[in-house]
């Protein structure tokens, strides 16, 4: 009986939400922007912070009257598809987006999904903004993918260089999960470190994603006594445990990663041991965050109960899509116009103090402008929150 009423309640709730979503948009024509990523199962955290930042921003825009492109004011509607981190589903999701007449999609979150959706996106005229780093996605002949964040092979060298110059780091060790994305990122990081003249003392230790005890994994790495320990492509779930194990093993050096992390998760999982942990973030540290960023964080928190610092880096893709469309209204259903505009597009970055610009970059990494210029904000964790260590630009 209990179970039945629970299910009933759940069904009712679900139906209400479904209707709620469709009936909320009445006045303005809707501009649909897609999201294809993982929002359930083990890797749910990656996609959810993504989806939520888009939804929070869309709700904000709609509340303030919509978004005007080429004289028409649109309500922004986010259409999300959960690909369960399965590349086969990701393709289905992209097909779904094509079906909905959507030309701009954020996601997928992982390498294999991003590679798998490419044929669909290109044949249906969809620009997509994956959070995956393989260069082949963005180099010609690939044309429709735009890297939605700073790649590790871009942030890595910047961080290593900073640490070499400011902290006297000479040796570095890498550790990665035994999965496609982290391993690729580790290889990229190792190459970058060697190029900078760092001595790589350990680069072949990996761990299973489901590891519950990192002490045995880290012990041999610690024995190589590096100045810097890089957690390549570490997931927010594993980061605090790795930090904690490394510190408990007596590691005194610096720990860093090139992926975005959440301060709350670090505080809970590693506490004071996470002090000094370096990661790449968006622009929500107090020094950099513009009033608009602060309002975004407030609205996000209000909407979903808690904020996730990973969203700092994930707020940009939607902003880029909308700003570029505003600059080139014909691109609304013509991605060729969008691509053409990408070369010259420039707009102020509303989330950051100072005169940072939104523009497309990537010439040096990909040979074409297929990356959003997100400020490369390198953060350091201190007492429950991130502080900005330094800011750099990607070209």
């Amino acid at each position, binding site marked *: 009986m209990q179970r039945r009423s629970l299910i009933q309640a759940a069904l009712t709730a679900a139906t209400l939400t479904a209707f709620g979503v469709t009936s909320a948009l009445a006045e303005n024509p809707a501009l649909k922007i897609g999201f294809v990523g993982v929002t359930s199962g*083990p890797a749910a955290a990656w996609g959810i912070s993504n989806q939520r930042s888009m939804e929070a921003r869309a709700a904000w825009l709609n509340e303030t009257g919509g978004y005007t492109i080429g004289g028409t004011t649109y309500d922004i509607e986010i259409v999300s598809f959960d690909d369960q981190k399965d590349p086969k589903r990701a393709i289905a999701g992209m097909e779904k987006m094509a079906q909905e007449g959507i030309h701009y999609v954020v996601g997928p979150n992982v390498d294999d999904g991003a590679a798998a959706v490419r044929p669909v996106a290109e044949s249906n005229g969809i620009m997509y903004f994956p959070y995956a780093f393989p260069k082949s996605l963005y180099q010609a002949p690939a044309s429709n993918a735009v890297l939605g964040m700073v790649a590790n092979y871009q942030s890595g060298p910047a961080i290593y260089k900073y640490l070499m110059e400011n902290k006297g780091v000479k040796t570095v060790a890498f550790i990665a999960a*035994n999965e496609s994305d982290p391993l690729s990122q580790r290889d990229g990081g190792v190459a970058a470190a060697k190029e900078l003249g760092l001595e790589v003392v350990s680069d*072949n230790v990996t761990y299973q*994603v489901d590891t519950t*005890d990192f002490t045995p994994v880290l012990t041999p*790495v610690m024995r190589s006594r590096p100045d810097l320990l890089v957690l390549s492509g570490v997931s927010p779930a594993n980061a605090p445990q790795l930090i904690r194990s490394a510190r408990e093993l*007596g590691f005194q050096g610096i720990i860093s990663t090139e992926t975005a992390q959440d301060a709350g998760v670090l505080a*809970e999982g590693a*506490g004071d041991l996470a002090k000094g942990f370096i990661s790449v973030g968006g622009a929500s540290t107090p020094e950099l965050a513009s009033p608009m960023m602060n309002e975004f964080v407030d609205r996000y928190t209000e909407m979903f109960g808690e904020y996730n610092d990973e969203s700092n880096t994930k707020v940009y893709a939607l902003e880029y899509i909308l700003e570029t469309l505003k600059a080139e209204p014909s691109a609304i259903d013509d991605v060729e116009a969008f691509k053409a505009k990408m070369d010259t597009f420039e707009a102020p970055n509303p989330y950051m103090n100072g005169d940072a610009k939104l523009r497309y970059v990537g010439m040096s990494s990909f040979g074409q402008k297929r990356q959003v210029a997100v400020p490369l904000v390198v953060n350091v964790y201190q007492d429950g929150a991130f502080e900005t260590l330094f800011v750099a630009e990607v070209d």
Partner: protein
Amino acid sequence: MEQILANGVYLGSQYAMIALGLTLIFALMNVLNFAHGQMYVIGGFVTYTFYGQWGVPFVLALVMSCVTLAILGALIERYLFAPVIKGPAREESTMLLAAGIAFFLDAVILLVFGEKQSGVPKIVDGVFNYDFRLIMPYDRILICVLAILSIVAFIGLMQYTKTGRALRALAQDRTAAQLMGVNVDRYSMIGFALGAMLAGLVGGLLVTITGVNLGMGGATSIKAFMMVMIGGAGVISGAIWDGIILGFMEAIGLALLYQYGDITYLLIFVSLMIFLAIRPQGLMGKPWG
């Protein structure tokens, strides 16, 4: 060497506890509980909520994890497994049911506890460091001791109480147990609740060290399956042995094979396959389960 030994004991004790619950459920009902890992995660989240969020004393929070999971397990057995097992279905259909429950619990965890990694403050600070040859944080030692105590308590329960005897009789031969006057329905439910409770208890214990997140469920289940295979499905002593064996294999493999990082698990899996091909009933099991 000392470090490998210590890591092995620590990993082994927690694996053994996970395997115990799974093997108990398997022995009693011939159900391979795909949702075991999810139960473990719920246990972790309950302790997290009580201890980490609301500041309830740790031990009390652990008890809450046990109680929650025992109730959940009992309900699942009573309203889902029992009718399906009794029905005319093929034996295998319980596997589909278990998988469905795993999906369901995953969805519930996501909705109730969210997608983020959660952790609680350390219960004890400090690290035991013996000349850098043996490094073990105190909280790990404590959890390891608690896990071993729980295993001992569980064995005691199975050996010396009426419930334990009834459960063992049930595991050995359902029909015979029924003839001996064991209330099969009741003890199946108790057994399932106990198995689920063990999962919750490990989850609660480990949340202090590894934290907890949605993604741990499936992976934990698979690991638990492997262990149960090594020891022999449905054998209590086997479950303890295999936990320890897997713990040591992992500790030794990671210590010796680290320069080939990717292959420790590959080797563990492959040797498991070879082992099972040679000795299909596992270490302690009866042939063909």
